[in-house]
């Protein structure tokens, strides 16, 4: 059963976005995005303007398309066979899907952290952080060492690992591994950092550390975080988008979504009446 969104409701969403746009420069601008996996449609006409240097949370019940939406921001969905999309995504005014854009180069500008931490098992901590730079041709030892330290500091991992940078990355604890992955993504100095449920496999203390990190990270780049944990969205995001069954239901400032949402569906979800 697909609950219909009334025409005027869509208009209302757009109005909210206008307000959002006033608040900050737009980093990612999504227009009428539809996406199919084979014959199954996963996203329906999603339009959203994600502000720069803020953190935006995408929430919604599982299967609502929030991870899929995130993956269209760095074209990772193209990796899955049979995925097709229509619509536009602009990154600071640049069309991500224009033929001139090389997805490989795009992904250097839009970093990503995954649900399950995935440091490369054959590499040390140092190599893990620097692998992106090295494979993209950075050879200068001095730059690499500086970047290593700054990224590990940014990920609040430096003090814990500085004495054993040449140990394998997989020897760290789950939370440390996830912060290592954040450092690895930040080493590319991305303009946007996508986080796909980065804490879902972590204990509360490790989760807290990563949530704290997000405050630091958004001074460097735009953060978009997908989470099924509403409290988390409330704690660490400036803006929140609520998605349901492949549609964007509502997008606004986080405190507005959590205190006074416009849509009944949003309110139902926030208050735990479904999902």
């Amino acid at each position: 059963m697909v609950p219909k969104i009334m025409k005027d409701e869509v208009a209302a969403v757009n109005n909210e976005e206008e307000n959002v746009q006033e608040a900050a420069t737009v980093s990612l601008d999504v227009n009428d995005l539809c996406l199919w996996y084979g014959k199954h449609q996963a996203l329906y006409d999603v339009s959203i303007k994600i502000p720069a240097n803020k953190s935006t949370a995408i929430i919604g019940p599982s299967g609502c398309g929030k991870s899929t939406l995130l993956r269209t921001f760095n074209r990772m969905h193209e990796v899955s066979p049979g995925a097709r999309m229509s619509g536009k995504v602009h990154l600071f005014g640049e069309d991500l899907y224009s033929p001139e854009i090389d997805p490989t180069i795009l992904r250097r500008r839009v970093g990503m952290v995954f649900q399950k931490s995935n440091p490369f098992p054959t590499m040390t901590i140092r190599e893990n952080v620097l692998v992106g730079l090295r494979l993209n041709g950075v050879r200068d030892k001095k730059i690499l060492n500086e970047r290593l330290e700054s990224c590990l500091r940014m990920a609040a991992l430096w003090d814990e690992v500085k004495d054993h940078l040449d140990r394998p990355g997989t020897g760290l604890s789950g939370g440390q591994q996830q912060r290592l992955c954040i450092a690895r993504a930040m080493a590319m100095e991305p303009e946007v950092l996508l986080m796909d449920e980065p804490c879902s496999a972590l204990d509360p203390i490790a989760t807290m550390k990563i949530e704290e990190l997000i405050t630091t990270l958004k001074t460097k780049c735009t953060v978009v975080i997908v989470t099924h944990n509403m409290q988390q969205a409330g704690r660490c995001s400036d803006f929140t988008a609520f998605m349901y069954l492949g549609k964007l239901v509502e997008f606004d400032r986080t405190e507005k979504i959590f205190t006074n949402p416009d849509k009944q569906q949003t309110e139902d979800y926030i208050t735990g009446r479904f999902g």
Partner: protein
Amino acid sequence: MSTTSLLASSRQNNHLWRKIKNWLMVSSSIGSALLVILPLGLVLFYLVYKGAAAINLGFFTNVPAPPGDTDGGMANAIVGSFLLLGMAVLVGAPMGILGGIYLSEYGNEKLNGAIRFCADVLNGVPSIVWSIIVYEVLVVPMRGYSLLSGGIALGLMMIPLVLRTTEEVLVLVPNSYREAALALGIARWQIIVKIVVATAYKGIITAVLVAGARIAGETAPLLFTAFGNLNWCTGLNQPVAALPLQIYAYAISAYEDWHRQAWAGALVLIGFVFIINISVRFMTRERKA
């Protein structure tokens, strides 16, 4: 007799018969298993019993001698086998590994299915056929048997073996590593070489070793390619001795001396094959732990 007691007694008999039958079948399956492993025990026993007596220093340092002359050896055949094996790995490993990479990292179901099928078919090609093929393609144009053609014959046989195992090993590398690397904007081929293959390198080495052990004992592919040589091989385009060829030649001879040498050669060959197989087993066990 009432019907119930009749039923009960027949059930009793039936049950006894079933128990006996169960016992018979289980013991005959044990008997089969014993019979199956018996030949291995016998072969190993004879190899050690007959071969060890014939192995001495001269066996590893001398070239073959005529019957009656007791200080002949298989030095040239042992070296020749290593040369052939090395060349086979040079031909077979890169082709097999790269092909396996294609199946695991690119490829589509249809093409992969076809290539897997063809690889399995190739594994079933009688080894003597490879000898004739390489003879026609290399030995005839080169006007002579050679180390090169022997190595290539063995190498071609390695390709499907290495390809299939490489694919199986690479598919086991979790997708999350590929995704993480993609999200860093690393080029696809670098992801494959530096991340995927680097993660699975032990498995790939294992694949090459296992294939190497498989072909190390092959004789038929060498018959009309490497041909054999009673002396040292002097060049890539010269015939070369190989352990299996030498064992074959000695085994079908009529001389007691040569039979002893054949046993000794067989002991060395099987020792080599088993050492590779056992070390591979240790490597894979370590990987699982």
